[in-house]
Structure formats: structure tokens, C-alpha cells
């Protein structure tokens, strides 16, 4: 048992030095599981699950997310339980890119505790930081509403999906999309093309189900092609160290990524 735990404990000790990660998993009591799940949590909030549980969770969360669209936690769970292979691909892509590798190394987190809101406020208009803050204010969202990862059985992949979630608001800012249902669908299409996560693909395909005919028409004819085009053109958005780019002008960043202006102003729709 000890030999099994050694590599886990070694990595956990390594985690202690990294400022990004929350409460240390090594303090968690390890318990043996007889149902085929990983023995012991690998990071805080980790809940080891057997393959059967993952399958049930994936099915249940998909059904619940469709039934009650306000259950954002179900979308998160769906992403965690279905994304293992895709997360590996994403992680490898991050490793190959210098900026992405740095992110993996340092593991920055985006939350009210890690963001210096005063500093962001003081940045010039048009900069990424200032626009991000404006996006949060206008849409009345907070970076704290992202659920911590629980069902991914690898702590590096758990970070990757956590990063993906926290970067979601950045994507809204980059694409200029509001947080209404139409804006969310457009961002989901962009993310689906960019990351290939099954949850994004499912969300992109099933999200429009509850839209009105007019919105659907605008979506299909203009917004989706635009989102897909930009998604394919832009490099992997997870490779951007946003925390170092607050002062960068949003327009310059958009040019760098090849993101064009949205074709339709969708604030009034949906």
C-alpha cells in the first residue's frame, strides 16, 4: 500500500509549493475503496469515482442539465465525467506551448481572492483587464461562481478543466458576448471547436433547443459560422496567460488571436 501511495504523496508534496492550488490534498485522509475507484483523493474536493459511477453521473447530469437549465453544476459534472481523453489532449497542447507550459507549472487561479480588482479598475480603457471588469459588472457575474473540479481522477487534468472554466469569462470578453442564453451558446460553439470537450459539443448542439425561432435563425445563419471560423483560426485559448496580459489592449489581443467583431449585436435578442 505504501509503495502505491509514494508517487501520490511525492506529487502532493510538490503541489505544496505551488501557490495556485487550494487546500492541500495531502492533509486529506486516504481511504481504501473496494469499488474500483482511485484510492484516496488526489486534490482537495476530489471525489474518487468508479467507472460505473462516472457513467451514471454523465447520464444523470446530462438529463438534469436539459431538464433544468439553471443547474450549472450539472453541466460542470458532465464536463468532468466525459472529458478525460480530451483533457489529456488539451494538456499536451498546453505543454507544447511555452506560455501554456508556464500556466501548467504555476497554476494561476482566477477568483476574487487572486484578482487585484483595484489594479484592474485603474487600468486604461480598452485594456483586457478593464474590459474584463466591465464585463463582470455589466452582466453581474462573479469569478467565484465556478465549481471546483471533483470527478477528474488526475490532479493535473483537474487543473486543466478548472482553468478552462475560469477562462470562460475571458472568452466572453474576447468574443464580446453577453451572458444571456444566446451569448452562452455562441461561446459554447467557440469552445467546442477550440477544446473538443464532449460537454461543449453537447451544449452547443442541445443548447439552442429552447430558443425562439428568430434567435435560432440569427444563430444558425450568422453567429455559429462566425464562432466556428474564429475558433478554428485562433490558437488554443488555454495557452494564454491572461493574468500577465491585463494591460494589453483588448483590440491588440483580438488581432493576435484572429478574432473578428461579432456580426450581429445580440444584446437585445434571446
Amino acid at each position, binding site marked *: 500500500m505504501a509503495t502505491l501511495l509514494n508517487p501520490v504523496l511525492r506529487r502532493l508534496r510538490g503541489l505544496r509549493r505551488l501557490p495556485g492550488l*487550494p*487546500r492541500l490534498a495531502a*492533509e*486529506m*485522509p486516504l*481511504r481504501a475503496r473496494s*469499488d474500483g475507484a482511485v484510492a484516496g483523493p488526489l486534490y*482537495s*474536493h476530489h*471525489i474518487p469515482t*468508479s467507472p*460505473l*459511477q462516472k457513467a*451514471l*453521473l454523465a447520464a*444523470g*447530469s446530462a*438529463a*438534469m442539465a436539459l431538464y433544468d437549465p*439553471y*443547474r*450549472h*453544476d*450539472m453541466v460542470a*459534472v458532465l464536463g468532468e465525467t466525459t472529458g478525460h481523453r480530451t483533457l489529456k489532449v488539451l494538456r499536451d497542447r498546453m505543454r507544447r506551448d511555452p506560455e501554456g507550459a508556464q500556466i501548467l507549472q504555476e497554476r494561476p487561479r482566477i477568483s*476574487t481572492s487572486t484578482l487585484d480588482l483595484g489594479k484592474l479598475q485603474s487600468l486604461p480603457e480598452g485594456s483586457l483587464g478593464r474590459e474584463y471588469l466591465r464585463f*463582470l459588472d455589466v452582466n453581474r*457575474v*462573479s*469569478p*467565484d*461562481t*465556478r*465549481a*471546483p473540479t*471533483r470527478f477528474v481522477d488526475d490532479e493535473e487534468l483537474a487543473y486543466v478543466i478548472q482553468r478552462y472554466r475560469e477562462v470562460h469569462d475571458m472568452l466572453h470578453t474576447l468574443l464580446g458576448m453577453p451572458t444571456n442564453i444566446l451569448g452562452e451558446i455562441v461561446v459554447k460553439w467557440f469552445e467546442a471547436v477550440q477544446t473538443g470537450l464532449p460537454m461543449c459539443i453537447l451544449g452547443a448542439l442541445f443548447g439552442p433547443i429552447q430558443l425562439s425561432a428568430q434567435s435560432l435563425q440569427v444563430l444558425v445563419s450568422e453567429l455559429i459560422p462566425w464562432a466556428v471560423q474564429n475558433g478554428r483560426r485562433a490558437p488554443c485559448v488555454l495557452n494564454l496567460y491572461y493574468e500577465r496580459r491585463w494591460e494589453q489592449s483588448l483590440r491588440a489581443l483580438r488581432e493576435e488571436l484572429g478574432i473578428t467583431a461579432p456580426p450581429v449585436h445580440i444584446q437585445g435578442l434571446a
Partner: protein
Amino acid sequence: MAAPKSCALWSYCGRGWSRAMRGCQLLGLRSSWPGAPLSARLLSQEKRATETHFGFETVPEEEKGGKVYQVFESVAKKYDVMNDMMSLGIHRVWKDLLLWKMRPLPGTQLLDVAGGTGDIAFRFLNYVRSQHQSKQKRQLRAQQNLSWEEIAKKYQNEEDSLGGSRVVVCDINKEMLKVGKQKALAQGYRAGLAWVLGDAEELPFDDDKFDIYTIAFGIRNVTHIDQTLTLSPRLECDSAISAHCSQALQEAHRVLKPGGRFLCLEFSQVNNPLISRLYDLYSFQVIPVLGEVIAGDWKSYQYLVESIRRFPSQEEFKEMIEDAGFHKVTYESLTSGIVAIHSGFKL
């Protein structure tokens, strides 16, 4: 408001945990899971409490209390749904069997402890009412030669439709009581019902008050969860469970009239090895998933199924009841021992 995240409290362990628990107790959120069998309210309440750190909003204290309260309310509402999903509706049969075993006579004073959402109380009222109605019918049939005045008087009498029976629902949790009251209103139960906030280990009633005391899926939870939640060795847990259980049993003995009956419906040990394997598989694989999908709370239901395994067996619990001073203690296992009804008399 964003949907619940996973329990931030699980990042506390050991000492930190009990610190967090004490904080929770100040809010009056102690353990005890009344009525709804498969629910871990304290954990889910605490989870909600820490989640309601409303991001950018600076929420004044009073308003925050209100928001937290609203969150708890939604959790309490999910219990009945969770019970149905987890037991596949069989919990209704179990509760019906408990009433069957009880066979209350007219004029019974029932105390239903940990009966928050009112399942047992409503069944009791139905039973008593139908008994009273059939008694009245028999009386009418026997008195065939009544004059019209006498018959009119009988109908105008507006006598008690329950025949003097009363039920008091006692629960430690306000939200569960609230849900219970709403259900009572919705289903039309008005007379003969009282709702009391109280702790099973320290009941707010005088001695020798009730004819029947029931506790359905509640006695297992009359422990301080903070003592049993951390992975302390099994012995410590068991003794903690027994200590609080005994306290509750002694209170039950105290408030019952001489000749009164104690009835307990609780999860117990399965006696059939094949069914035990299937039951374990279902409990550990499916129930936490259901908890996550329906109530957004994996950890509480994980804890729930583990705590069921730790509760004493039918025989051991029988001995505990005898130790509390009850006589003629018997038990009946239902569904191969998944649940058991224990019965004892105060003589």
C-alpha cells in the same frame, strides 16, 4: 445565483472540521434527520452556508441570513424527492407497514419525533379518520330506528372526526417542519396536528404524556455528525452513536405514558448475503450519484450510506431499547433486513 458548488467544507479536516461544525451549530443547525430517511441535512446546509459567499456583492449580515435560509429551504424541499428516488418509492410501503403495526386506537396521542415532513403523521391521521368513519357507519347501521330529529342532531354535532386522536410532530430542523406544514396545508390536514421544534435527546415535553412514540429514519441521525464524520476508528464512532441513541431512547421512555408503545423504523443489517451484495452495490454506486444529480450533494449521501452500515444490527438495537427500560421488545425486518421496525412497551 450560481448553482451549488461542491462542499468547500471538505477542505477542512480534523480540527478544522470541528471548528466549522461548531460555527454551524451556532446557527442552530445541529444534526438529526427527521422524516426523510435518506438525507444528511447538516452537511448540505453547511455546504450551502459556505457557498453563499456572494462574490462581488457585499451582503449585510441580516440579508445574508435570509439568503442562507432560502438555500436551506430548497434543500428541505428535495428530501421527499430524494427518498422516492433512492428507495424507488418503497419507503412509502415501509411507512405504511409501520402504521399497520401500530394499529392506533381512537383517542391515541402520538408523538412523531424526527418527523419533519410529516409522512408518519399524515398516515396516522388518515388511519384514525377512516377508523372513526367506519365506526360511525357501524353505529348508524345499528341504530336503524332513529327519529329524524336524532339523525339531524347527529349530523349537526360536528364531533371530532378523529375520535380524540392527536399527533405532535417534533423535529430539530425548522425548514423540515416548514415543508411539513406546507404539505399539511396542501393535502388538507388541519385538525389534530401540532408542529414542535425540539431535540430528540431533550424533548420539550413533560413525563408520561404520549401513548405512542414513533421515530422513522431519525434515530440513526441522533448523533453529532462532527464526531462520526472524520475517519475516526470504528469503535469511537459506534460508541458515539450508542451514547446519543441511548439518550434519545431514554427520552422516549420518559415522555411515554405507562403502557405506551415505542416504535422505531430504521435502516438495519441485511440478512441475505446475495441481497446484501446488491444492496451495497446500489448504495455505494448509485445513491451518491442520485444525491449529486438531484440535490447537488454527493458527500452527504456518501456519508449517509456509510452511516447506515455503522448503525447497530437488529439484535444490538433491541438490547439498547431494553436497556432504556422498555419491555416486550420485538423487531421485524422488512425487505430482507434493509429496514427494521423495533417495538417496545413502557410498563
